[in-house]
């Protein structure tokens, strides 16, 4: 009995922290479920980024605001479809002698339409292939909500992960230098930290968005990453303060390891669990921030769809009585955010070296 316990203890100590943590995570049922959910989301995201699925998300699959299939087609939409709209070609507007700058373009479009070779999207607006229902319904332009939300997830999660990586990298670097070197470096970075935390986070993000004036996925990653490092910094600095006086670091110094080597080869692996948990938490925070920014129109450009830009369309849709987009997008977001938050908790428990 005693020997087996010792045996298992010895085996336990021989395993690396990551192996122990992985074992703990696997035993945590909530952790496994959330890990699977997050992995499924990431797989779907990867597939849509590679163009395997949701590639033609902006095709008009169905009628405008087609309801989900399980609801059945709405009678009103079918009636509207049967009384098909005919393009108005005959009437000429009285321009009161003014020159319409779009006249040549419109003429050309009319000729194209008459020839039946309309290659622009609006031309096939009334083609019979547009269905009356879709799996999860259709938006205003008849695009599939399922594909659109998936494409939006790609943008939102990409922004979340990329900006979390950037913010965590900056926070770790600053924290390592401030905590390890101390002195004037520490004072300087602490001052910077004080400045960044004195301004409420979203206000700072708004101010930078106002100045940059250029929308883009890369810009928003940069904004979120450059402003969001303070939380990680605080924790990593405390860890480095604690670790730099430990025996193994002193031993490394004794055998002549340089400061850089001690900081990033010796100490960094020992604080990596803090970094990992922070990274996971930051992803959730930044996904939420991106959704709010894009909702307000300061985030992704108009030709990119994200969860925030989808939610932006929903208040007006609700008034018209169409809630499918809101429900689908809200659910997708809630599931991912909950799974990520629970995974963060499970990671924290699994990686905590004090727990046995």
């Amino acid at each position: 009995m005693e020997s087996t316990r010792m045996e298992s203890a010895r085996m336990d100590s021989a395993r690396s922290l990551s192996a122990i943590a992985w074992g703990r995570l696997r035993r945590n049922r909530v952790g496994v479920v959330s890990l699977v959910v997050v992995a499924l989301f990431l797989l779907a995201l990867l597939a849509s980024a590679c163009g395997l699925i949701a590639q033609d998300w902006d095709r008009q699959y169905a009628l405008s605001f087609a309801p989900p299939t399980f609801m059945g087609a709405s009678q009103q939409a079918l009636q509207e479809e049967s009384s098909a709209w005919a393009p108005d070609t005959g009437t000429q507007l009285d321009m009161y002698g003014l020159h319409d700058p779009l006249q040549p373009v419109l003429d050309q479009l009319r000729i194209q339409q008459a020839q039946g070779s309309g290659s622009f999207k609006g031309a096939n607006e009334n083609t019979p292939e547009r269905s009356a229902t879709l799996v999860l319904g259709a938006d205003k332009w008849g695009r599939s909500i399922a594909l659109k939300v998936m494409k939006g997830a790609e943008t939102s999660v990409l922004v979340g992960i990329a900006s979390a990586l950037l913010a965590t990298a900056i926070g770790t670097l600053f924290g390592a230098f401030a905590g390890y070197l101390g002195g004037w470096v520490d004072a300087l970075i602490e001052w910077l930290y004080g400045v960044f935390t004195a301004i409420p986070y979203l206000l700072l993000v708004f101010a930078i968005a106002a100045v940059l004036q250029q929308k883009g996925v890369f810009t928003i990653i940069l904004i979120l990453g450059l402003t969001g490092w303070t939380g990680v910094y605080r924790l990593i600095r405390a860890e480095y303060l604690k670790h730099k006086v430990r025996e193994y670091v002193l031993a490394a110094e004794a055998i002549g390891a340089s400061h850089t080597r001690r900081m990033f080869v010796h100490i960094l692996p020992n604080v990596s669990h803090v970094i990992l948990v922070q990274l996971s938490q930051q992803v959730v925070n930044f996904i939420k921030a991106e959704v709010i920014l894009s909702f307000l129109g300061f985030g992704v450009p108009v030709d990119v769809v994200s969860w925030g830009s989808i939610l932006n369309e929903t208040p007006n849709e609700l008034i018209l009585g169409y809630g499918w987009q809101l429900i689908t997008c809200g659910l997708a977001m809630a599931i991912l955010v909950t799974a990520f938050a629970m995974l963060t908790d499970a990671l924290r428990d699994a990686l905590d070296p004090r727990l046995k």
Partner: protein
Amino acid sequence: MAAYLIRRLVQMVPTLLGVILLVFLLFNWVGGDPAYVLAGKFSNPDDIANIRRQLGVDQPLYIQFGIFLRQVLTFDYGLSWSTQEPVSHIFLTRLGPSIALLLPMLILETLIGVAIALAVAYVRDSWIDRALTLSTTAAMSISLLIYIIVGQYFFAFVLGWFPVQGWANHGEGWVRYAVLPILLGLAVSIAPAIRLYRTFILDEMGQDYVRTARAKGLSETRVMWVHVLRNASIPIITNVLSSLPGLLIGAFLLERFFSIPGIGREVIMAVERSDFPVIKAITVSVAIATMVFNLLADLAYQWVDPRVKLS
């Protein structure tokens, strides 16, 4: 005490200078020349030169920084670029609605949050506690945007219980307009508040003095509401005070959806219109408020808990 106060105020100076420098670099250096924006689409070089002279952007950067510093110290940020209204006037008039919305929200959130947290901490690990933990997790997973969109649609548009949008600063009108935004704000913020306060209270319930109080035969009500609550109120007060300035911005979505003329909505409009002076003024002012409230939180800390020595 006075020495502590003075030292803390002096310590604020470098941070405040940093904030001013950050805002200045952002808007005067990264932001580029505003004259082209202001002159509009049909401008000539004379107009642009004139605007540059008026704004002082034809001066070297260090003189521009001096101008900005003077603006901060005198609370005179010039005129708004889009409405020509004095910026300080904008700030002061928008402050009222923001506070009229946020103060009741904060008070209700604290009272309800503490009461529920005390109740569930008392029955901890029971099914009520677990059910509440589960429902707060679920409530926190839904985006606050969805609370506001659905709440406004359902309670104001479908049921018609409240006006969809609008604002009045006081009296009956305030009650009419403010109730729905406050309720929605509470729906968003109450779940994290309960979770946080529950951990604060549980921390205190494990202490020796609680056992002593029970041992000398005090009623559970007295132990919870007097002994535990007084000690747990220390982190709670700190939390409430230091979250106050952030709330000013945090309520911007409520202000935008319900057309409440507050600070948050003003920031969003200023960003949409590239109204730099307004953004600069609000950023610096809110940063100062944050620092002051952090100091107040520390002072309150000592006032509630005499063991804490300020040094």
